């Protein structure tokens, strides 16, 4: 890995096999973003990870770490980062919005390009998939991978609304279904709602409700992998989206994994290491990234 002009402060590093893992903060204007860099000695490719938010981020976290360690062993540098207002980054939850998430991702792409000496691909999960897709349209990247992407803002918040009802029901002594207002109405009234102990603020909602993955089409020829969970084969909307992208010249593959993820309530029970879903999604992504690397090497020779 190369020296970078971007300083990572409060950092700690360790050696993991032949790779280095470095965690710390990057100063951006008056806030710091938390970054975690997995660096093989001579990177052949690179990947920036865009996490989901809320409970989904906690559920996906270990899987992202295991992916990063697997890729680093294969010579692929990985940068994971917390959006400002989430995780260990500065900023507060009310300030989190789609635009700041894309900005943070583009900054992470710049940092990793600088460190690894190659243009990274971007991986996004759930709401992070929309962020990754937007980042690919805004900056130079080598590819786009999506894990269980949100179809659009509306269906995402509809799901969250149902989960919220379930959670409320579990917390009520009389287990009765109370009449609740929609997420939209509650956010308009209070500016914030709660979902299983996580905050959702109106700024994030307003900035993502109108988004649709289909409309965030990557530039032509961008290698793209979409992995859908809990499906024997890619679902109808995903097939339509990827076909539309292919028509636009995107080098797009859709893949389905039958195992299910319980995004908001799974992290209580199961260690990721032994899960078939985790193994499958990591292997598929690693193979896809390796195929990109082979393609680049063949083109160069």
């Amino acid at each position: 890995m190369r020296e970078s002009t971007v300083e990572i402060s409060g950092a700690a590093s360790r050696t993991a096999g032949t790779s280095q893992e470095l965690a710390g903060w990057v100063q951006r204007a008056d806030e710091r973003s938390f970054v975690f860099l997995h660096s093989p000695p001579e990177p052949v490719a690179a990947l920036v990870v865009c996490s989901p938010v809320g409970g989904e981020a906690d559920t996906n976290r270990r899987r992202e770490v295991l992916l990063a360690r697997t890729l680093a062993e294969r010579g692929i540098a990985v940068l994971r980062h917390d959006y400002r207002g989430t995780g260990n980054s500065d900023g507060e939850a009310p300030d989190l919005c789609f635009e700041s998430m894309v900005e943070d991702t583009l900054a992470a792409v710049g940092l990793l390009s600088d460190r690894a000496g190659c243009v990274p691909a971007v991986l996004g999960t759930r709401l992070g998939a929309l962020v990754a897709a937007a980042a690919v349209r805004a900056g130079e990247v080598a590819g786009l991978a999506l894990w269980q992407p949100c179809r659009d803002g509306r269906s995402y918040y509809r799901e969250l609304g149902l989960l919220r009802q379930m959670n409320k029901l579990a917390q009520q002594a009389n287990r009765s279904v109370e009449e609740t207002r929609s997420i939209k109405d509650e956010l308009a009234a209070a500016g914030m709602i709660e979902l299983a102990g996580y905050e959702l603020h109106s700024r994030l909602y307003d900035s993502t409700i109108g988004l649709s993955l289909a409309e965030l089409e990557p530039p032509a020829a961008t290698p793209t992998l979409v992995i859908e969970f809990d499906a024997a084969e890619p679902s109808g909307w995903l097939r339509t989206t990827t076909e539309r992208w292919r028509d636009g010249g995107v080098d797009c593959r859709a893949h389905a994994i039958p195992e299910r993820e319980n995004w908001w309530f799974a992290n209580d029970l199961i260690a990721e290491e032994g899960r078939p879903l985790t193994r499958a999604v990591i292997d598929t992504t690693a193979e896809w990234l390796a195929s990109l690397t082979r393609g680049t090497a063949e083109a160069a020779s």
Partner: protein
Amino acid sequence: VTVVATPFEQAFWADAGPNRLFGVMTLPSGVARGVGAVILAGGRYEQSAGRNRIARRLAHALAAEGFHVVRFDYHGVGDSTGAHEEFVLHEPFTDDLAAAASQLRRAGVSRLVLIGDCFGARTALAGSVGRDDIAAMLLVSLPWRDLARSTRKADIQSSRLSVGDYAKRGLSWRVVRKLADPAARRAYTKLVVAKVRHMARRIRDRLSGLDVPPWTSRRVIGQLSAARARRIPTLILYGRGPVEEYTTDFDELRSARALAWLGAPGESVQVETLDQPIAGYRNIVSQDEVVAVATRWLPQAVGQQQEVA
């Protein structure tokens, strides 16, 4: 949500046996007290910032009170190395706690406060035994049972059902019909084993004159008694709600003569119950309450302990 000025933070790796733990140390943003705080997460696979960043908020609030604070990923969780199959309440990660405490020692603190919820409370309590640097403990949703996640339901259910309930349910057509299903058979076996264990223990306790419910962890009684004997200020925090199983357990325990000292005036071990659900920090109001209690009670408890010393 309480927002305080962002203090300086330093990432770290700490050795815990064969594992390397990832964590973040928050430095005091006020006058340093020379006291470190270790935040111990519950038995969940969450990141070091905690659910809805409660560990980060707690760290920043305590840093403003002059504490050095560490939060970290247990081995097998988040960015730490290692692996484990599940969280077992009576096998707390005391090596992980010791590694985090060493990190604080290296930063120059001489005494420690431990803040843990659920599995983290058990780790704090077990880890406090044999240490002479514990200034106070805040134990959130302290579980009084020895169990693993996989046997939790059976253990709790068996203690809520009488032998008569067992017989009535065991002979019902619904249960008999399900016996053909191996998964159901395994679940019923767990229930029966838990009940037999509780009954055997009840008989032993009657013979020895101990009047606690049979599911009560002897380890917890021993460790809390040790903290009491050493006059370590300890606050146990519970919440109210339909899924607050550990509060229900504690309510049942309170009537035991053997534990009459728990929360008694003048005792170093006190108990508070919040009106909201608190288990797993699944409620933002209770997250804020825990931060408020910690920033109110810990500085006071540390001061008290210093006077006693």
